[in-house]
């Protein structure tokens, strides 16, 4: 066999190339994962179409009360998609990859553990971009007319929200048994989809001021302010950054590389 056992001095593959190769591999894996696509694409599309066809619950509340229903609904569906991909999908994947030993094996390759985490974050952002574009097109067909001035604040909100939710996923998926992660991550998805300030703004829910502190509510509010008002929501973005920081620190303590 060729090359095995060569002892000439080696210069490793540049870190960027390794991380990008792994990010591409992870992104393709996410896009080919049927059950994951159900949660991260099919359910948000169903929510978008379903809630656009009915008039209740009331979505256009508070500072968005003058907006069309679809203009308030679409940013909430985008927030739900970020929750699905960055939190639920990643927590479950992480739980099972620990079970299968994938994290340990990749940790022994030149990619390493740090490279693996960076590649996963990159893959999530790439897949999210595709999902959000698809949902944006569907929402556009349904009459969504976002404020173009909100594009940059929306991108910032999605990046901060994704990082916060991926870090929370690492806390859950990196600490518990795979079966427990599967059950809890789905339960959390249902609760946050219903009462986490994504589809329904926190302001429209009982205890809204408390719920608005959730990362999902902050993401939803930031996206609604961006696309409905063309405005930056500094409080929501700061909340997302704080959630990301705290969850990241917690994940460093909780994340175990094997089941």
């Amino acid at each position, binding site marked *: *066999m*060729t*090359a*095995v*056992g*060569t*002892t*000439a001095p*080696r*210069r*490793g*593959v540049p*870190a960027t*190339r*390794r991380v990008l*190769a*792994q990010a591409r*591999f992870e992104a*393709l*894996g996410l896009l*080919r*994962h049927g059950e994951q696509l159900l949660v991260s694409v099919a359910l948000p599309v169903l929510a978008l179409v379903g809630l656009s066809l009915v008039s209740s619950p009331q979505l256009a509340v508070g500072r968005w009360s003058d907006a069309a229903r679809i203009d308030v609904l679409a940013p909430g569906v985008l927030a739900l998609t970020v929750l699905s991909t960055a939190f639920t999908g990643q927590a479950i994947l992480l739980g*099972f*990859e620990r079970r*299968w*030993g*994938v994290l*340990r*094996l*990749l*940790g*022994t*390759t*030149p*990619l*390493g553990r740090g*490279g693996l985490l960076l590649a996963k974050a990159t893959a999530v952002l790439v897949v999210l971009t595709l999902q959000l574009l698809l949902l944006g097109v569907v929402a556009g067909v349904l009459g969504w007319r976002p404020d173009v001035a909100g594009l940059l604040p929306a991108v910032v909100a999605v990046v901060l929200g994704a990082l916060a939710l991926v870090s929370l996923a690492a806390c859950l998926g990196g600490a518990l048994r795979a079966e427990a992660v599967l059950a809890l991550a789905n339960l959390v998805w249902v609760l946050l989809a219903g009462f986490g300030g994504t589809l329904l703004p926190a302001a429209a829910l009982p205890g809204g001021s408390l719920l608005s502190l959730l990362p999902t509510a902050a993401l939803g509010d930031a996206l609604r302010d961006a696309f409905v008002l063309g405005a930056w929501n500094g409080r929501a973005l700061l909340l997302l950054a704080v959630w990301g920081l705290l969850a990241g620190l917690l994940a460093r303590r909780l994340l175990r*590389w094997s089941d």
Partner: protein
Amino acid sequence: MSEGAPRPDAVELRDLTRSFGATTALRGLTLAARHGEVTCVLGPNGAGKTTAVEIAVGLQRPDAGQVRVLGRRPYGAGADHRDRVGVMLQDGGLPQAVTPRALLPHLARLYSTPVDVAELAGRLGIPAFERTTVRRLSGGQRQRVALAAALVGSPEVVFLDEPTAGLDPHARREVHVLLREVAAGGTATVVTTHSFEEAERLADRVAVVVDGRVAAAGSVDEVCAGAGAAGLEEAYFALTDGVSL
């Protein structure tokens, strides 16, 4: 076997101890492996073989003792070190939703001097099931993919934790031929196994691990002579019988 000027051992584990709560896995284990040789590590379940391998590949840190692999401490070593080391874990560690056809070329891209993936896969009979996802492969097929994953980076040291477990006789024979070739190319090849036949066929040196220590090490003949045994199986039982685990 290597020739010319003597080189330092590729793997040097000295006086390693490692405990998990009340359980002591290693109690002063000392083990070495040389370039160009196959070193087979034998021992009962729970003797500490896998813990020693995981320390050598940097997945665990010993409580005490010294570890050097290619002259480096493996725990926390950089990508350039991992580029030179191949690993096959006992639990495989393969992603379940991908095919060998996608996985092996991807892994090869992470290494600076990958082997010819098609040739390696062909040697291991992987093309017959290369379009099947890992989760649908049999245990033996997964073993072959995991072995290919360990060798794909053209390692200078390779650690193989029970590489032939679950393989049929033909596949085992081919793996033995392949590992002899890998070692002949200069790679220090460390194989844990429960098979005496495998150790006798493959090993330049064997180490028998008992209760967290190396009870005997050397060539098969040396280990047998030391235990006053006619063969490796007899030597193994002489060394391991009566040891509580």
